[in-house]
C-alpha cells in the first residue's frame, strides 16, 4: 500500500522544516530528497534547509545532492533574469508594456516564492490589441513560433489565451505570451482590464509590470486548477503557500480584500480550492473566518468536492519507484481532462482531443 501524501516525508518537511528535520531518520532523508526531486522541489527544500540552518541534520553523504540543487537553482535564476532583460529590451523598444506572470514575476518582485524555485518557460501578459505587435517585436529579436502546424496555430490563436509558444533561436528558451489569464472559452471570465488596473511597475524597468499580490495569489490558484500538469501540482501549491504567507504578513488578519477581488474577477472557486489545498497540505495560516466565508460563496457540492480531494491528493503524490500505481495514472488522466473541460466547452473539447489523439498515433 503506497503511503498517502499527507504522511509523506516531503509534506511533513514542507509544513514544518524545523521540527521535522530533527526527527527524520537517514532513510527518511533519502526518501525526502527523492520525493522533493520528483516534485521539482529539491532546490526549494534546500532553500528551507539553509534558511532554518538545518544542514547539520542532513546525513553527510546526502549533502552533495542539496549542494547540487542549490547550484541548479542559482544558475536557473541567472538565466531567468537574463531572459527577462532580453524580453524587456525587445518590447520596450517597440513601446509595448507587459506584465510578467508566475515564476519570472516572483523573481522580479522578489517574492519569497522565487527562492529555490525552478523556472521553465517565461509567461508574460500583453494587451490584446498589442498582441500582434508584441509578436513582431519578439520575432525581430530572435524568438520564433514553435507550432507551425496550421491546426495548432488556429487552436492557440482562436481558442487559447496566448500566442503559440515562442522559442528563442539561439538560447532555446521558451516564452508564452498571453493576453488574458484564462482562455476566452473558459466559463470563468475574469476582466483583464481590471487586472491591468492594479499591476505594479517593476523598479528601474518602466513599462515592465507584475500583478498585485492579490492578483498573483488568484492567478496562482487559477493556474493550479486549470492546468493539466499535476506532476507539478505540489510545486504550484508551494508557490501559493508562499504567496499567501506574504499576504498574511502584509495584511495581518485583513483578508476581506482578497475575497472581494476574487469575486470581482470571477475566481472565487479557484480561490476556494487554492486555500483548501494549501491549508490541507501545507497548513498555510489562513484566518478561519475567511475559509468559512469563501466556503459559503464558492464551495462546490459535496460529491464533487469529495472526488476532487481524492484525485488531487493522489495525483500530487511524488511518484518514486514502487509508488507509481494505476490509480495515480487514472487520477492524473481525469484531472487532465477536467483541466481541458474547464478551459473549453465540450463542443470544442471533444474534436480537439480527438485530433490530438489521432495525431499521436501517426
Amino acid at each position, binding site marked *: 500500500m503506497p503511503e498517502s501524501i499527507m504522511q509523506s516525508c516531503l509534506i511533513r518537511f514542507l509544513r514544518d522544516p524545523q521540527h521535522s528535520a530533527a526527527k527524520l531518520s*537517514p*532513510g527518511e532523508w*533519502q526518501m525526502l530528497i*527523492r520525493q522533493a*526531486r*520528483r516534485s521539482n522541489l529539491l532546490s526549494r527544500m534546500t532553500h528551507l534547509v539553509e534558511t532554518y540552518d538545518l544542514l547539520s541534520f542532513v*546525513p553527510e*553523504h546526502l549533502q*552533495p*545532492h542539496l*549542494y*547540487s540543487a542549490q*547550484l*541548479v537553482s*542559482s*544558475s536557473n535564476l*541567472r538565466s531567468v533574469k537574463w531572459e527577462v532583460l532580453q524580453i524587456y529590451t525587445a518590447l520596450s523598444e517597440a513601446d509595448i508594456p507587459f506584465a510578467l506572470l508566475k515564476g519570472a514575476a516572483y523573481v522580479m518582485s522578489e517574492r519569497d516564492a522565487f527562492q529555490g524555485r525552478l523556472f521553465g518557460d517565461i509567461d508574460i501578459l500583453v494587451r490584446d490589441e498589442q498582441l500582434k505587435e508584441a509578436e513582431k517585436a519578439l520575432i525581430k529579436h530572435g524568438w520564433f513560433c514553435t507550432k507551425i502546424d496550421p491546426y495548432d496555430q488556429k487552436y492557440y490563436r482562436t481558442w487559447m489565451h496566448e500566442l503559440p509558444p515562442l522559442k528563442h533561436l539561439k538560447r532555446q528558451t521558451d516564452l508564452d505570451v498571453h493576453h488574458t489569464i484564462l482562455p476566452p472559452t473558459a466559463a470563468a471570465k475574469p476582466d483583464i482590464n481590471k487586472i491591468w488596473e492594479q499591476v505594479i511597475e517593476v523598479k528601474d524597468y518602466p513599462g515592465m509590470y507584475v500583478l498585485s499580490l492579490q492578483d498573483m495569489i488568484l492567478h496562482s490558484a487559477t493556474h493550479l486548477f486549470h492546468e493539466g500538469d499535476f506532476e507539478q501540482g505540489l510545486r504550484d501549491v508551494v508557490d501559493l503557500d508562499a504567496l499567501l504567507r506574504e499576504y498574511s504578513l502584509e495584511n495581518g488578519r485583513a483578508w476581506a480584500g482578497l475575497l472581494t477581488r476574487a469575486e470581482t474577477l470571477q475566481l472565487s472557486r479557484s480561490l476556494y480550492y487554492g486555500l483548501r489545498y494549501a491549508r490541507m497540505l501545507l497548513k498555510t495560516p489562513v484566518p478561519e473566518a475567511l475559509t468559512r466565508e469563501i466556503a459559503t460563496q464558492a464551495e462546490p457540492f459535496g460529491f464533487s468536492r469529495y472526488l476532487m480531494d481524492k484525485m488531487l491528493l493522489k495525483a500530487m503524490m*511524488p*511518484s*518514486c*519507484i514502487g*509508488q*507509481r500505481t494505476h490509480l495515480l495514472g487514472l487520477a492524473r488522466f481525469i484531472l487532465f481532462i477536467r483541466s481541458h473541460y474547464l478551459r473549453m466547452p465540450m463542443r470544442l473539447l471533444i474534436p480537439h482531443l480527438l485530433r490530438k489523439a489521432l495525431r499521436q498515433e501517426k
Partner: protein
Amino acid sequence: MLLSSIPPRKLKQQLAEEGINLKIGPFVVNLSSTLPKVAENLSDLYGAYTLEDSHRVDFHIALQSPSIIRRWIRPQAIFSFDGYLPFKPLPQTQSFAMFEWGLNWCVANNAHQYLVIHSAVVEKNGKAVIFPGTPGSGKSTLCAGLVSQGWRLLSDEMALLSTETGLITPIPRPISLKNESIDIVRSFANDDIFVGKPVHDTAKGSVAHMRAPMSSVARSDEAAVPAAIVFPKYRKDGSIELLPLSKGRTFLELAENSFNYHILGSTAFSALTAMLDQCECFRLSYHNLDDAYATLGNLIDA
C-alpha cells in the same frame, strides 16, 4: 561484500525485488530490474564492485519493460530514475548499454559538486591524463588500450573534477567500445582483459563493453592529480603526432565538453583554470595503439 559473491539466482531475485546497491565511484546506485540481460551483464562486468547499505543510495534506477506486450513482442527496455523517464524505450538487447548511458545522465544532471567533463581519464605514476573527446575521436579505444596495459582507469566517459579539491574523482566503469575499435582493442589487449559480446544496431552502431580492471575498481576512492590534457584523434593512417596546445584553446574546448559548466558558472571557471595551471596540453593524432601507448608512456615519464 562484492557483487560476485552473490549466487546468480539470488542476484536475479534481489534485482527483481528491492534492487542491489552498487558502489560505483563516489556514488551508490540502487538498480532494480526484471530484465534477464541486466543480471547477466552485471555479473560479467560489475563482479568486483562492492554492495552498500540501502540508506546510502544516491540514484535509484530501474530498467523494466514498458508494458506486458513489450515483454514478448519486439521486447523493449525503459530506464527510470526515481520514477522519472528521461529517455524513450530502446530494444531490450540494449538494456545494459541503456543503464550505462542513463547513469551518465544521472551524474551529469545531479552531481554538481564536480565539474563533469566529457572525457576518459587514466592514471600512471600518480599522474592523471584526461582525454576529452567528441564521439569518433577514439578516446575510448585509447583509454581501453592503456588500461589493458596496466594504466589505472578512472573513467571512460566523464572526468569528475572536484571543485573543492581540484582532484579527479575516479568512477571506473565498463569501457564502451564501438564498431571497429572492439577488434582493435581485443587484438591489442592481454588475454586477461574481458570484452563482452557486442550488441548491434544501437544509436552508436555496435557496442561492446570491456570490464574495468579489478585493481582500478579497488582504488575507486583514490582521487588523482590531473597532469595532462590530451585531445585524441584517431586516423586511418599516417604517423603519430603529439602537438602542444595553448591553454586558452584547451580551456575553451574543455568548457564546451563539460556537461554542467553553465550550472557551476564562476565555480567552473575557477576549477578549470586551476587545473590548467598544473597541466600540459596536447593534441594527439594516432593510428595504432602501440605508438600511442609508447608516446603517452614517455610523456608521463618525462
